[in-house]
């Protein structure tokens, strides 16, 4: 195994230009688990953690940029995100453990492309984009498009995910996050969910809704049929419960070591209902049948 530790992006891309199939390392909380007792089988490891250009959370107008090397702890502590997107902080706060959060990065969480990745649903709910950088060119792709399946993304061989950005939700929009795990810490999601909701305060009609679920398919899935059943309608409990039933149409959960497809399906519906209740409470929208 050869180890490389570029100090900035120029060094990094110069390095990558001469290399094929490098393995990228950032926080190490996925890579070193996967290669436990097998690190010697890796040929070239490029440590991104020292590349200074890739960190930091910045606000430019209404665009929020999160550098790929931002750790989950930094997300949890961010004053900017506390104001703009606290749901992302809730998601980060439930990842692993304090030790994991101090090292794990948002770039790793996304590029690792686990269907259970906890940061992904919130980011897709705000229509986040990822910046992929190569030696000479940067390109921008929607996060939802970027993720293809378990461990599969659009990243080309000499490309690195460098930035995640999104437009700050408006004042009348709210984003919420829900996670269900098998215990209260160090728990990979059995199902997770994020939704963005915008409601017309005068007539309680749903103006906009985006729902994304993780761990219920090969990648994060958008619950379009649920959205369609709700958009433009006046919100009430019955509508939410009927919408929940539609969740089944949009997801394809499997049986695996952690849970069953049947259970995931049932819980996905419940997380949707809870997400809606939380969103409405945050928007301070009074709804029929909702206590």
């Amino acid at each position, binding site marked *: 195994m050869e180890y490389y530790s570029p100090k900035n992006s120029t060094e990094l891309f110069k390095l990558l230009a001469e290399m094929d199939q490098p393995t990228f390392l950032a926080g190490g909380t996925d890579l070193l*688990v996967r290669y*436990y*007792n097998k690190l*010697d089988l890796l040929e070239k490891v490029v440590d991104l953690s020292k590349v200074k250009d890739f960190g930091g959370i910045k606000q430019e107008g209404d665009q929020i940029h999160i550098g790929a090397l931002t750790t989950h702890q930094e997300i949890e502590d961010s004053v900017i995100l506390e104001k703009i997107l606290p749901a992302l902080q809730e998601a980060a706060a439930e990842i692993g*453990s304090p030790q994991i959060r101090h090292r794990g990065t948002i770039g790793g969480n996304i590029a690792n492309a686990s269907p259970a990745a906890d940061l992904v649903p919130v980011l897709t709910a705000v229509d986040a984009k990822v910046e992929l950088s190569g030696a000479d060119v940067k390109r921008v792709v929607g996060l939802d498009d970027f993720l293809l399946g378990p461990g599969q993304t659009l990243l080309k061989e000499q490309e690195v995910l460098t930035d995640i950005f999104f437009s700050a939700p408006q004042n009348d929009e709210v984003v919420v996050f829900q996670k*269900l795990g*098998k*215990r*209260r*810490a*160090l*728990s*990979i999601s059995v199902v997770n969910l994020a939704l963005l909701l915008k409601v017309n305060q005068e007539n309680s009609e749903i103006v906009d809704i985006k729902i994304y679920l993780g761990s219920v398919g090969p990648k994060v899935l958008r619950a379009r049929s649920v959205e369609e059943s709700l958009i433009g309608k006046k919100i009430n409990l019955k509508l939410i419960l009927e919408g929940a039933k539609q969740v089944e149409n949009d997801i394809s959960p499997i049986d695996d*070591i*952690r*849970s*069953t497809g*049947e*259970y995931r399906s*049932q*819980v996905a519906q*419940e997380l949707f*209902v809870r997400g809606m209740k939380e969103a409405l409470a945050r928007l301070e929208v009074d709804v029929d049948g909702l206590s």
Partner: protein
Amino acid sequence: MGTRSVGKKVAKVDVIDKVLGKAVFATDYYSDDMLYIKAVRASHPHALIKEIDVSKAKELEGVELIVTAKELAELNNFGLIIKDQEVLVREKTRSMGDVIALIAAKSEELARQAERLIEITYEELEVIEEPLRAMEDEAPLIHQSGNILCSHNLKKGDIKQGFAEADLIISNEFRTQRIEQLPLQTEAGVAEYDPETKVYTIWAATQWLHDTQIDVAHALGVSPTKINLVQPVIGGAFGKREDVSVQIHLALMAKLTGKKVKQVYTRAESMIAQSKRHPMIIRIKSGVTYTGEITAWEVEVIGDTGAYASSGPAVVHQALYHSTGPYNIDNIAGKSYTVYTNNTYSGAMRGFGATQAAFAYESQIDILAKEIGMDPVEFRLKNGYQRGSITPNGQELTSSVGLKETIEQAVEASNYQQIKVERGNKKRGVGMASIMFGNGYGEGYPDHSTCEIKVEDDGTLTIKTAAADVGQGVLTLVAQIISEVLNYPIERMNFLQANTATMKNAGSTSTTRQTLFTGNATKNAAENMLAQIHHHAFLELGAHYPSLEIKDGKIMVKGEGRGLTFGEVARLAKAKGQPLIAEGSYFPKTDVPDKETGFSAKNYLAYTFNTQIAEVVVDTETGQVEVERIVAAVDIGKAIHPQNIEGQSEGGTAMGLGMALMEDQIIEKGITKNPNLSNYLVPTSLDMPEIETIIVESKDAAGPYGAKGIGEPAMIPTAPAIINAIEDAIGVRIKELPATPEKILKALKSSEE
């Protein structure tokens, strides 16, 4: 301030090194020029070995030796009860943990690389996954002796009559899962061989030094005097360190390579290759009257002992002997089967089989109470043991039966009656479980412990006890007893590192026996020492015995201000050729149970009783259970170290919670699907409830100062208490552990339909 410390909180004797990070566990031994051992394990759980090709691995630079069974025909089998485990597998694999080859290399990494280069070809056989399949007539044999390793019987009274007297007869089947003990330190050790003395020295943790010594000696075909086992600090055990793990392999490779050798299991290896808790099927058929008398109890226990016997014959029948719980029942019939399968072998885990049995009987008790419309507390008090009760083995309980006190105190401390009214069927439930646990091997199994105390010239005490301290605090207990008898400060006591070369047998740290056995042996030794000190002081000071007292580290003549320090007495005694060394032992007798009925007038020396009450909240939309509070009332006779008793109770509760809700080693077709900690889940700090432990002291038990043990009983009531609480909350009864959210949700949905 006195130094007598029985009943008090004292700092544990071995704890400073632990908080400083200086404690040396088996994984922490390092030396230069050491070789690293890696076991090459089966890649098929039941297969004939056709060919083993180690040639490529041998060529790897830094690999010093690779051996297989072929080169070592002289090795004998090992095993705790039945010697059915091969050191290196000769003809066929029986489980994924089986060792086919051993590699010695200059580094762990090289050993791992060598392992990847070894090629083995197999002829696959049917993999027997379930004991019920193993018990079928035409099932392939895992061992030539047959798939049913053994069976046991229990018979008391007249079972037919008992059922005839019943108003209601209720049958249920309960199942428990395969659990991993998961001590935080995996198996590890270091060994070296002295070609001149032909002695093997092995540093590796074991719950019973002298038993492992014999097992290793027998496997290698040498006298036990040639095996010196040295005990490092032990990183938890819970039953997993009873069986041989690294010891024989290390000894072998130390001799063959002529070097010091080290082996450390990975967590996956530890989970796949070392013992588990027996998964059990327990069927109970009970007869009960409308007024709440239990008239009959019939039990069948089937235990999956996996590929090897280990403690299986004992574990499974202990489940049978404990299968009625602490309740007066005149008519009992039972049978147990210990069955081989191709799963990782099952052995000892906290509670042995009594833990699984308690889940079954305490669930059944709650079911019966509900059927006849009686309050669960009332039902238990009505049928519960008291002095004079007779156990299923026919033993009359003549002392220390604090069961009802544990029930009453747990009920009071938890405010049970009020909570039951407030909660119950509103997704918040409360449940209880009362259990009993026989201390020690019992059953006439010859067992003893010894302890030696020496007073040094400087007045410090050197204590030799081979009792394994696995974290529970037995060394502290020993120190407390000595301080109590001799009125001498614990700070002046030193414990030598336990080993077989210079120490006598203290028996196993298991079966909840150390408080009784090593405690009594220690008290015996301390009293012997006290007598010696009195004797020399009597002669030297010319004072009559009744006027001698020990105060402030000296033996003094009362009222005269003259006396001798312990150091002075030691020097005096040594000069006379009678060095101040005292040895104590404890050799109690129990009776061997009758083969047909299990009758044994004295089956166990003492029984510990524990009642726990659990408060839970069930999320009926997700099936998740939150345990909010557990109140535990433990009858341990006399609490020698109350804080350590609490520590055991809290730790046991955590383990019981894991058993109830989340722990499950999933083996399919002989292959473990979750050999890692991300998918084998134990409770984290955030999963824990508030725990209150009440110590009930019935004071006249067989242990020192009337004490009984807590180690295993601490965890036994937790799972049934939680399951009973879930039933109280949502009217759904889970009969197969663990009660995962998936199972609870499924049960809720079917109960709605």
